[in-house]
């Protein structure tokens, strides 16, 4: 016998199922009057610092059909590259920006959409700067454990080229699955991030 590590096992994940909205966005499924507003709907207010952007996209299954029952969460740094979190020890993030958003995919079109700001750069463990990115977490019926990925910005070619995380991707053709293309919508820079669960364009997902 050796000494015991006295470790617990993480609770195993189970699918969020088709009715995740009841718990996550009840007002969106017309369960009203329980709480005032669904958490994570609004990231940006008038006092938030940084460039306003729209991030939108769809999540496709292996048949090319968009998921209409998924829940998408994003987590990102503020315009200066600081996270609004007690775990952030480098400085005080913008108090008018939570950095966390949550949206269901539309029940008809499958589209998700966030109004947010473009994040600043955050250092990797060794101090090199990562390219600006937004962390995505996706759950849905048929997804047994939440999928982590990142969205990078199509107009940040130089930063993307030196990002130590993107450099870890062995098959360079797959880097493009993490890079959102930029367009304009209602005068706002709009980044389209389509996520593919399977197939030739399968998005790079992370085990973090």
């Amino acid at each position: 016998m050796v000494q015991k590590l006295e470790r617990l096992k993480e609770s195993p994940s189970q699918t969020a199922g088709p009715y995740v909205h009841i718990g996550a966005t009840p007002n969106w499924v017309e369960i009203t009057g329980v709480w005032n507003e669904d958490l994570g709907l609004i990231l940006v207010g008038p006092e938030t610092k940084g460039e306003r952007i729209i991030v939108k996209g769809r999540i496709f299954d292996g048949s090319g059909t968009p998921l209409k029952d998924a829940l998408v969460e994003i987590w990102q740094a503020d315009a200066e590259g600081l996270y609004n979190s007690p775990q952030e020890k480098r400085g005080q993030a913008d108090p008018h920006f939570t950095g966390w958003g949550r949206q269901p995919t539309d029940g008809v079109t499958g589209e998700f959409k966030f109004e947010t700001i473009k994040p600043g750069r955050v250092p990797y463990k060794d101090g090199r700067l990562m390219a600006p990115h937004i962390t995505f977490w996706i759950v849905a019926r048929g997804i047994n454990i939440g999928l982590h990925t990142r969205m990078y910005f199509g107009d940040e070619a130089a930063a993307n080229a030196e990002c130590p995380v993107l450099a870890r991707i062995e098959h360079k053709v797959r880097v493009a699955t993490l890079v959102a293309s930029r367009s304009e919508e209602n005068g706002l820079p709009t980044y389209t991030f389509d996520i593919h669960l399977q197939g030739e364009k399968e998005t790079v997902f992370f085990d973090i």
Partner: protein
Amino acid sequence: MSDQGSFYQRDRNWHPPAFAPQYKTTILRSPQYPLLSLDNTLSEMTGPVFGHDKLGPLDNDLIRNFAKTGDPIGQRIVVYGRVLDENARPVPGALLEFWQANAGGRYRHKKETYLAAIDPNFGGCGRTITDEEGRYWFRTIKPGAYPWPNGVNDWRPAHIHFSVFGQAFAQRLITQMYFEGDPMIWQCPIVSTIPDKVAVEQLIAALDRDNTLPMDALAYKFDIVLRGRRSTMFENRMEGN
């Protein structure tokens, strides 16, 4: 929080695999390339926090938080427990959100078509934040089992869905709680996506007769474990590498 290290690697053999064909929807929704393994960066070691100011007084009372004309039908229960990390330390300030079917196994959702009746007094959602010792509790009615389109005659055992925010985005977790003694747990294609029987048992809440409220509600104990962190003494060694 003294420890600032990255989180222990997830044991992917303890969790259900993405592809589990007995649960048919996973077939087209499971990534097929290997995941990109990445030791946590600040993007994963930080996470949002939720203050008690977000919560209303009835948020952890599913018997009352939607009630219109009286109490919902069903077995009254209290669910309580602690949120811990893999180092067996309590996780204070964790946001828990839970949702469930009513006593007849029917969800209040526009896409739900099961013929069991909607309960006019039951919404099926609640939330709470763990206290300094990682404890939580809420009051609800016991959900019913329900059939679902997978095999021609598949049923879900009674369960409550849980979403958990710990102290970092790396700890983000959604899972389900089952009830002690339910034989249907072992017939469920979603439960059986978890490969290890001991891991399944980690999701089965114990009936706690001692904490049952006399003449009122049964009690079930359900502890949740989130990923644990490395101690910083190991992290610092790597500086400047």
